[in-house]
């Protein structure tokens, strides 16, 4: 009896339900169904926000904003698209808008790096690929430096790069999500890679100068 009451109160029965049923229940006024959806997808949404912003506070705020938007727009959700994909479109547009709001023009990669960041750049120049792979995951400054490098890109370039490389989306999916033409997506991806290679080479050259 206690278990039954608890399951009713905390929504244990919701765990096994597919997203579509939970959405139908949420639309019918069952708020715990949407809570279960949020719990299910929160980690993925937050991870995507972290690719756009290094500050975990901003990532968390955007994650919550994403679920608020999803909740208010739930009636417009169509079953043809997976709920995760629909959420991803919301969070990507949210992060893109936030990038544009925070920075109207891309920042120059300034030269004030910490000793650890310089050490990491030196490692990128000198270490074997195996060493790089094993070291990077544990290094906070590798992550920070990667964000600084991505900060030099224009918002649309960064968005395309994240969607293409991190999320594995193809050109037409990106175009549909962002409301852009396929040609624009291709151009932005090309420019993003060009800019990234240029900045990265500048950084590596600087690191070589510092170390010599």
């Amino acid at each position, binding site marked *: 009896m*206690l*278990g039954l009451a*608890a399951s009713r109160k*905390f*929504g*244990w029965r919701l765990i096994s339900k597919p997203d579509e049923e939970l959405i139908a229940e*949420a*639309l*019918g*006024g069952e*708020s715990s169904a*949407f*809570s279960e959806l*949020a*719990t299910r997808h*929160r980690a993925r949404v937050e*991870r995507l926000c*972290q*690719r756009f912003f*290094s500050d*975990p*506070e901003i*990532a*968390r705020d955007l*994650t*919550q904003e994403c*679920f*608020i938007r999803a*909740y*208010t727009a*739930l*009636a417009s959700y169509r079953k043809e698209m997976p709920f995760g994909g629909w959420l991803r479109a919301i969070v990507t547009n949210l992060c893109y808008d936030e990038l544009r709001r925070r920075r109207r023009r891309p920042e120059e990669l300034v030269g004030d790096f910490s000793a650890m960041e310089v050490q990491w750049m030196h490692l*990128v*120049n000198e270490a*074997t*690929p*195996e060493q*790089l*792979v094993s070291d*990077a*995951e*544990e*290094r*906070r400054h*590798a*992550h920070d*430096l*990667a*964000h600084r*490098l*991505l900060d030099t890109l224009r918002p649309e370039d960064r968005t395309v*790069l*994240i969607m293409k*490389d*991190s999320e594995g989306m193809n050109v037409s999916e990106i175009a549909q999500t962002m409301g852009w033409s396929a040609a624009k997506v291709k151009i932005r991806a090309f420019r993003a890679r060009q800019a*990234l*290679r240029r900045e*990265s*080479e500048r950084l*590596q050259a600087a690191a070589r100068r510092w170390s010599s």
Partner: protein
Amino acid sequence: MNCFEVRQDFPAFWRRELLEYRRAEMNAHLDQCSKCDGAFRTFAMTAPVLHSEHAPQTPAGSGARPREVALGSSARPASSARVNYSEPRRWLAMCASAIIFIAASTGAYLAVTPPAASLSEALTSPREPSMQDLFGPDTPDLSNDLAG
């Protein structure tokens, strides 16, 4: 492996998802091809963000816990709905409470109830109680006299 295949496999190599022989081929190729080696080093500059499965942990105390999202009264379908991020912890607490409650109830039941074997024996015994059962072992058995 040619250059195209090697570059296609950079993300898998970074996430350590390549099979051992493929990994060895990748290392051998990067050792020989300076262009791919340079491309990998450029890739490695952004891979901690673009290709990692998770962001590195922030130092303790630097980040607040996720707050609950209180949806405003304009939100539909119910204004009291909340996105509750601490649900698993509450489930754990409820499970622990339920287990303690069940254990305590079982203990209390066993403490006040006679052993099930003697109770069932008394209820199902076909023999009627004798005079000795009722008045003690010294009581003479008069059942035959009474019957005669």
